[in-house]
């Protein structure tokens, strides 16, 4: 009788350990799944679009194309937008401080989608401060 009782106790112990291990395994899987999906906000596509927009505005400013746009000459900005990769749409608007829009250009035949990335760059022209806003998305 005692032997039977010991065997039963041992089986019960193993069952308990297995149950604990199963619970631990379930927790691990849940944590793993949560961790992977919680990073879904890190969108590499948006990250790439952001880099394109930042680089574009830097190039436009350093080549004085933003200055030219304030003078009403949008040729270089339009050429730049037209030369963007075929799968990327872009708009560039120039503002005088917070007093409203001065010029706006968009890539022809292209519509900005809802998943848009916006960047800005300040610049000085004839001692006045302006800023350019670029919106880019995959089109």
């Amino acid at each position, binding site marked *: 009788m005692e032997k039977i009782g010991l065997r039963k106790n041992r089986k019960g112990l193993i069952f308990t350990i297995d149950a604990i291990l199963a619970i631990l395994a379930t927790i*691990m899987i849940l944590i*793993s799944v949560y961790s992977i999906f919680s*990073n879904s906000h890190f969108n590499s596509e948006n990250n790439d679009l952001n880099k394109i927009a930042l680089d574009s505005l830097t190039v436009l400013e350093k080549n004085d194309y933003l200055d030219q746009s304030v003078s009403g000459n949008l040729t270089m900005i339009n050429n730049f937008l037209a030369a963007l990769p075929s799968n990327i749409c872009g708009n560039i608007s120039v503002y005088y401080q917070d007093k409203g829009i001065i010029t706006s250009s968009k890539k022809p035949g292209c519509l900005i989608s809802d998943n848009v990335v916006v960047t800005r760059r300040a610049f000085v022209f004839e*001692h006045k*401060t302006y800023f350019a806003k670029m919106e880019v998305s995959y089109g």
Partner: protein
Amino acid sequence: MDKRGFLFTIISLIMLISILAFVIAYQNRIKELQDADTVNILRYYEDDIVSNSYSDLMDINVVNISKKTNTLVNFSSLGKYALDRDNQGIMNNYRNFIIDNYSRLNNINISMDNFVPEFYVKPYNSKFSLGTGSLTVLNPNYTQIQRINIDVTVNETLDAGTAVIPSADPGKITINVRFIRRSSKEILYSQEKDQDPTEVNPEFKLPFRSDPPNPTEVSSVSVKFGNYGTDGMLMISTSSLEGEITRFEIYYDNSDSRTIIDTGANLKINDKSSDIILAQQ
């Protein structure tokens, strides 16, 4: 049976721990990418504000800083001067826009300290102050200055009057001054004199007046170097006309330190702080 079950449990655990290790590595990689991205964006904002703003606002263009038998700091443009030009106001306007609007639009914290129309040539500690109608250069270490060449281009249509030419102090610091009319590019005045930095020297001056003379139609441009409060002070002034310094070359004795044109202004974006440097050797 027990041994097989135990082995099965161990293998399952090892596999699950491997998955957990993979997830931790993945998380770390994502965090590194996000940190790198944040740093890149902050660098972009820093470049946006620091790179050209000061020189564009003040019309300053540094050609180069060269070191041969002496050190030359060479500007092709060193500001415009007229009574209706408020350099401090221009800088305040830019600063306020960046601190208020730009920071709000980009969701970052920006502060700018000591953003004023002044800069220093270090290690010589020459202090350039761009005022309304005049440029003042204080040179506490004037003994290290060898020569200064200055061109002032004036926006004036009146006839040039009688030029004022200072006397020479041979063996002292050479000052070369030219006044040029903007419309015709004609050199109206060209003088080179050695000047004692510790004396109150007469000025290099060119007046303009209408013909026949009309008391309300007079203007002038002048350069003076010497002791006007402190030894070794240089002052370029305009009166009733707009003058633009289109050449400013200052030659110093060579120094062991690297020459830097430092505005003394400081930019802080979130927690990252940087100095606004116009040029360095």
